C-alpha cells in the first residue's frame, strides 16, 4: 500500500470555530494522508474533531468555522483555495460522503430510485432515457434484493440497513475516488453493520477507491482499515498501520481507548483505566443469588398492535386481488416467559424490532400487555392498568434507566430536581432540606460532583447525564431496575465507567437488573444470564458464559460473529 500514490494529503490542518465564547480550535495541526486504494480509519470519541476534519476536506464547514492553517491537497487540487465551483464539482463526483443517519440523508417524499437518478443526471453519468436502468443497476450493485421493486420504494418503507445501502448507492453512483464514511453504521444492528461494512469494503476494493472511515468503534476500524489515525481533543495522537496500532499502541490515550472497549475474555473491571484503583467492594453474589426466590416471573406475555389500514372497509375494497389478506394484528411480543431472581442480572438481547423494548415497557408497567402474566414478588402486576400503577406504592420497587440520557431528562429541570422528583412523590422523605440531603447522598453514590446538581441538563456532559438518570432510578431503593441500553449513547471510556458504576450499585444496594441491549459484548460484562429474542420470541436462554462460548441456535451464532473484534 505504501507504494501507491497519495490521493489525499492533509498537512497541519487547523480548524477554528467562532463561538459566543471566543474562538475554539476544533482541529489542531492534523496530518492525514490517504493513498490510492487505501482505507484509513479516523478513530476518536465525541468532540475529538474527527468529523470536523472530514468536513474540512469536503469544505462544508458551516459559516462559523474556517480553516485557519494548513493545506489539503486532493489529487493535485488545493482544496483550501479552490474556487467554490470547482469544489462543487469535486463533491459527489470525486469525493463522496456517507452520513450517520441514512434516513435523514434521503429525501423522505421521493422514491429512492428517483433520488439515484437525480444524482446520475446531475453529474452527467446518465441521460433521462437510460437513468432508470442505471439506477436499478446501482441498487443491484449494493445487493438490494428485487431492485426493480425497491426502485419505487420510499425511504420510510425500507429498513435502516436498506436505507444505508441506498445512500451508499448514491455515494458510489458517480464512481468517486474517495469515500468518506462518517459513522456509517452507528444506530444499525450488528448483523446489519457487518453486511453494510462488508459491502463498502468490497465495492471500494473492486473499484480501487480510497475510503476514510470515521468511527468511535476501535473494533470496527481494526476490522476494516489498513491504517488507523487516533484523535483526541482535536489532535492526532497516533497514526499507524492498524495491525501495529493494536499490537503495540504507543500513546496512552490509544491504550485507554483499547482498554475500555468491551471484548472477549475481559472482565468488567479490566475496562477501567490502568491508573484507577480497583473498587473496594468486589461482591460476587451470583451463586448466592441463584437459589433465591424469583422476584419477577413473566409468563406467556403477548403484546399485539393493530395493523393500520388492513382491516378497514376501504382497505378491503382497495386490496389487490392476488394479495393475501393479512392478519389485522401485529404481534410485537409473542408469548415469552422468563424469570429474574433476587439480586440477579439478566440480559435481554436482540436486534431492533425484536420486541425487547416492548417487553421492558410492559414489565415496567408503562404499557399494558395484551395477554399473559407479569408477577412481581408474588403479585400479578400485569393486571393493573399502566395509568393506575403510577400511583401505587409498588411503583417505587420497579424503576428504569433510559436509553438516551438527554431525552430522559426534562430540559427545564435542574439535575437535583430530576433526582428529587421520585423522592418527593413516592418516598416518606419530606421537607426541602431532607430531600436535598437525599439527592446529595445519591449524587455521591453515582459519582456526580455536588456542584453539578444545580445545573440544567444541557450544561452536563453525556456521562454526567447518565449518572443523573441512574441516581433518579435508584433514589427509591428499587428491587428491580430495567436498564434500557443505558450506555448506547455514550463514548466507550464513559461506558466503561458507567457499567462499573452500575455493577457497584447493584452489589451495594442489592438490586436485580434486566439489561436490555443489542450488544452481546456489553451484556456479557454485567449479566449472569442472557435471553436472546428475535421477532417477538425467545430463541435462546442460558447462563451468559454458556451462551457466549457455545451458542445453541444459528441466530445467536450469527449475532456473535457479527461483532467486530479488535485484534488484541
Amino acid at each position, binding site marked *: 500500500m505504501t507504494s501507491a500514490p497519495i490521493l489525499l494529503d492533509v498537512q497541519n490542518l487547523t480548524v477554528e470555530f*467562532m*463561538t*459566543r*465564547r471566543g474562538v*475554539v480550535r*476544533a482541529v489542531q495541526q492534523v496530518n492525514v494522508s490517504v493513498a490510492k486504494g487505501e482505507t484509513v480509519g479516523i478513530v476518536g470519541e465525541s*468532540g*475529538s474533531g474527527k*468529523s*470536523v476534519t472530514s*468536513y474540512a476536506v469536503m469544505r*462544508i*464547514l*458551516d459559516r462559523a*468555522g474556517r480553516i485557519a492553517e494548513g493545506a489539503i491537497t486532493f489529487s493535485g487540487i488545493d482544496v483550501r483555495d479552490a474556487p467554490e465551483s470547482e469544489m462543487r464539482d469535486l463533491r459527489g463526483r470525486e469525493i463522496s460522503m456517507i*452520513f450517520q443517519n441514512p434516513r*435523514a*440523508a434521503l429525501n423522505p417524499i421521493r422514491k429512492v430510485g428517483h433520488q439515484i437518478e437525480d444524482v446520475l443526471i446531475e453529474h452527467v453519468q446518465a441521460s433521462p432515457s437510460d437513468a432508470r436502468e442505471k439506477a436499478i443497476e446501482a441498487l443491484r450493485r449494493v445487493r438490494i434484493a428485487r431492485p426493480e421493486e425497491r426502485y419505487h420504494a420510499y425511504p420510510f418503507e425500507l429498513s435502516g440497513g436498506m436505507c444505508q445501502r441506498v445512500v451508499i448507492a448514491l455515494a458510489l453512483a458517480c464512481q468517486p475516488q474517495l469515500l468518506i464514511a*462518517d459513522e456509517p453504521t452507528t444506530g444499525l444492528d450488528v448483523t446489519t453493520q457487518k453486511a453494510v461494512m462488508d459491502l463498502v469494503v468490497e465495492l471500494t476494493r473492486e473499484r480501487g477507491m480510497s475510503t476514510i472511515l470515521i468511527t468511535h468503534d476501535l473494533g470496527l476500524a481494526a476490522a476494516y482499515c489498513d491504517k488507523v489515525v487516533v484523535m483526541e*481533543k*482535536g489532535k492526532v495522537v497516533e497514526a499507524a498501520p492498524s495491525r501495529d496500532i493494536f499490537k503495540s499502541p504507543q500513546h496512552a490515550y490509544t491504550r485507554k481507548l483499547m482498554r475500555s472497549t468491551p471484548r472477549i475474555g475481559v472482565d468488567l473491571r479490566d475496562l477501567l*483505566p490502568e*491508573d484507577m484503583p480497583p473498587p473496594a467492594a468486589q461482591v460476587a453474589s451470583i451463586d448466592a443469588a441463584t437459589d433465591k426466590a424469583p422476584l419477577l416471573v413473566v409468563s406467556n406475555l403477548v403484546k399485539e398492535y393493530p395493523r393500520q389500514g388492513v382491516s378497514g372497509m376501504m382497505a378491503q375494497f382497495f386490496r389487490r386481488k392476488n394479495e393475501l389478506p393479512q392478519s389485522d394484528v401485529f404481534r410485537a411480543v409473542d408469548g415469552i416467559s422468563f424469570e429474574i431472581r433476587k439480586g440477579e442480572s439478566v440480559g435481554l438481547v436482540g436486534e431492533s424490532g425484536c420486541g425487547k423494548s416492548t417487553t421492558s415497557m410492559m414489565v*415496567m408497567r*408503562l404499557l399494558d400487555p395484551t395477554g399473559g402474566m407479569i408477577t412481581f414478588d408474588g403479585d400479578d402486576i400485569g393486571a393493573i392498568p*399502566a*395509568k393506575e400503577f*403510577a*400511583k401505587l406504592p409498588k*411503583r417505587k420497587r*420497579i*424503576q*428504569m434507566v*433510559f*436509553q438516551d440520557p438527554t*431525552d*430522559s*431528562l*426534562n430540559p*427545564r429541570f435542574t439535575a437535583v430536581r430530576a433526582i428529587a*422528583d*421520585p423522592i418527593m*412523590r*413516592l418516598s416518606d422523605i419530606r421537607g426541602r432540606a431532607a430531600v436535598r440531603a437525599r439527592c446529595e447522598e445519591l449524587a455521591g453514590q*453515582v*459519582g456526580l*460532583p455536588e*456542584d*453539578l446538581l444545580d445545573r440544567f441538563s*444541557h450544561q452536563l456532559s*453525556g*456521562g*454526567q447525564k447518565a449518572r443523573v*438518570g441512574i441516581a*433518579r432510578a435508584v433514589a427509591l431503593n428499587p428491587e428491580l431496575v430495567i436498564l434500557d441500553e443505558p450506555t448506547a449513547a455514550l*463514548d466507550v*471510556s*464513559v461506558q466503561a*465507567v458507567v457499567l*462499573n458504576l452500575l455493577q457497584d450499585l447493584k452489589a451495594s444496594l442489592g438490586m436485580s437488573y434486566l439489561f436490555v441491549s443489542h450488544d452481546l459484548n456489553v451484556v456479557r460484562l454485567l449479566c449472569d444470564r442472557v435471553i436472546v429474542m428475535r421477532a417477538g420470541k425467545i430463541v435462546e436462554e442460558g447462563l451468559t458464559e454458556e451462551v457466549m462460548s457455545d451458542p445453541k441456535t444459528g441466530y445467536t451464532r450469527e449475532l456473535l460473529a457479527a461483532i467486530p473484534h479488535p485484534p488484541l
Partner: protein
Amino acid sequence: MNRRPNPETAAIAVTEPPLPTLAPPAAPARTSAQHMSFLAHARYVITDNPVTGIAFGMFLVIAFCAIFGPWIAPHDPLASNTGSALQAPSLRHWFGTDQLGRDILSRVIVATRLDLAIAVFSVALVFVLGGLSGVAAGFFGGWTDRIVGRVADTIMAFPLFVLAMGIVAALGNTVTNIVIATAIINFPLYVRVARAEANVRREAGFVQAARLSGNGEYRILLTQILPNVMPIMVVQMSLTMGYAILNAAGLSFIGLGVRPPTPEWGIMVAEGAAFIVSGEWWIAFFPGLALMLAVFCFNLLGDGLRDIVDPQRRT
C-alpha cells in the same frame, strides 16, 4: 446531505472524570462560561440581531406611553376648541388638531393605554385557554384532541374579523367584549402551536421517567410538559399581540367597541378618514402610524424572541 457540525458540541471536548468520585477537570472553566449572566446573554442577542434591539426599544417607548400617557400628553385629549379646529401640524400642535380642535399628539399618546390593554388582556386570556387546551389535546390525544381540534377548526372556518364583529355585536358593545372576541379568534393559533409542541413530547424519555416517579397524568402535563411549551408560547404571544391591537382598532374603526370621544387609534383613523379627501391628512395619518409601529414592533419582537428560544440558533 448537509449535516453540519454544531460548533459547540464539536469543539468542546467533554472530559469525563476518570474516577467516579472525582470532579471533572474541566468543571470550573465550564461553570463560568455556562452560567452566563442574563445581561450578557441579552447583549449577545441584541448585537447579533440589532433589529431585535430596535424592537425592544420601541416596546419600551410604547409601554412608557401606556403607563404615563395622561401625564406626558401636552394637552387634554378630550378638550375641544372649535377655534383651532383642523390645524395642520405646527410647533404648538405637533400632529395637528382634529375637527373639534383636539390635539392629535395627546390623543395618540393617551390612546396607547387602551389599545395595549385590550391586546394584553385578550392575549393573556387566549394564552391561558388556548395554551392549556392545546397542551391537553396534544398530550392526551383521543377525545380531548378531537373536541379541542374541532372547536379550533370551527373557529377557523369563519372569516376571523367577521367572527369578531359578530361576537361583539351579539354580546354587546363593550371593551370587555372586544377582549373576549379578540381572544376567541386567536384561539386556534394557540391551540395548534401548543398541541404540536406537547405532542412531540408525549412519549419523551423524561415523561416516561416522570411516570416511573409516581406522577399522575395531569401532574405530568402541568409540571413536565407545560414548562417546555412555554418558550414557544411566549413567542406566539408577542406575534399575536400586534394582531390583537390591529383587530381592536379594526373593530373600533367600523364603530364597534370603543366609542367616541374616547381616544383610540381605530376610532381616530375612522374619524380622520373623511377628511383625507379635503386635504386634512394628519387626522388619520398619525394614529395610523402609531398603530403600524406598534404592530410592527410586536412582530419584530416575536421574531427576535423566536431566535432566542430556538436552541438551533444558539451558537
